[in-house]
């Protein structure tokens, strides 16, 4: 703490002799109500983050634009959490809204991301089709985490994999977005799948603790 002061001597120009801070990001995608907010809160320090939503025809009917000609953006809060891996390494989670009207945010968020988690609700599996398509197209590594809601039917991850037509190297696993241990398993599965490509048994892993 005491060494963080960078303004000590006049000519130091803040060249940063201290270890350089590195930050990486993981996207949390999924349909509305799939549990993104819950997942981010379960594992990270949740922080308020405002971003702009471009008002477009997609918002028609939701946003009354009469008399506000020229207003093209509005402010929205997004799911955002920070995990301090070490003093010089931060991992950020960004919840990306699945609705079409938020798509403009995706490219920016996805650029340079480590990977993504697609949260699936088996009762509304089709809600995560767009996310799966997006990450497949961009070749961004992702895992599908099936959030086991208390009142939702249980499916084998393999059934979900077939339903979503996932590539064999995409891990699919059950999870409980409320539980740290489970969310931890989801994220480690993702990072493992990035660092060790082409080792298949992991895709059958389950993040759901034994009941």
């Amino acid at each position: 703490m005491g060494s963080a002061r960078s303004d000590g001597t006049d000519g130091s120009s803040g060249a940063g002799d201290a270890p350089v801070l590195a930050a990486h990001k993981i996207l949390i995608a999924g349909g509305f109500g799939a549990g993104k907010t819950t997942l981010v809160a379960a594992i990270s320090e949740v922080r308020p983050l405002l971003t702009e939503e471009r008002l477009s025809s997609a918002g028609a009917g939701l946003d009354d634009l009469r008399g506000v000609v020229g207003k093209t953006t509005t402010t929205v809060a997004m799911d955002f959490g920070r995990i301090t891996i070490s003093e010089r390494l931060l991992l950020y989670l960004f919840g990306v809204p699945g609705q079409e009207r938020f798509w403009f945010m995706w490219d920016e968020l996805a650029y340079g991301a480590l990977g993504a988690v697609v949260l699936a609700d088996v009762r509304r599996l089709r809600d995560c089709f767009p996310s799966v398509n997006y990450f497949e197209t961009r070749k961004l590594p992702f895992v599908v985490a099936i959030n086991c809601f208390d009142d939702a039917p249980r499916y084998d991850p393999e059934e979900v994999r077939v339903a979503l037509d996932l590539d064999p190297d995409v891990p699919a696993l059950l999870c409980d977005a409320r539980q740290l241990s489970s969310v931890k398993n989801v994220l480690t599965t993702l990072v493992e799948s990035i660092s060790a490509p082409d080792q298949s048994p992991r895709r059958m892993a389950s993040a759901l603790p034994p009941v």
Partner: protein
Amino acid sequence: MPPDGRDGKWVRRDLGPVVRPYAVTGGRTEPADGEVLDLVAVVVAVGNDSGGGDDPIRQTPEHRKILRLCQRPVTVADIASDTALPVGVVRVLLADLIVQDAVRVVRNRPAVQLPGNDVLKEILNGLRAL
């Protein structure tokens, strides 16, 4: 998620100050240097702690607040969070400071290629230790 609107009014309390976001940028929506900083770009104040700056007109309270946050390396997302300003606004204000040489970018867009296995391993270990 759109804010809950009653009578079309903004009722969410966490939406920040009741000032149009781009009022603090003087209506500018594009960063002065044209560069869009990534949310996880790391910036830091340049050594000489020039509180006022040579361009007092551009140094609004928001600029100064950001400059203070940049006394140690910090990400764009954290600045936005700590100032309660929308990300787009923070980008514009940060670009002003960068153009003035008051702040520099330590690391902008993370490389397109994945970080090395040592970094991934560090992340893995960090996650497991949570």
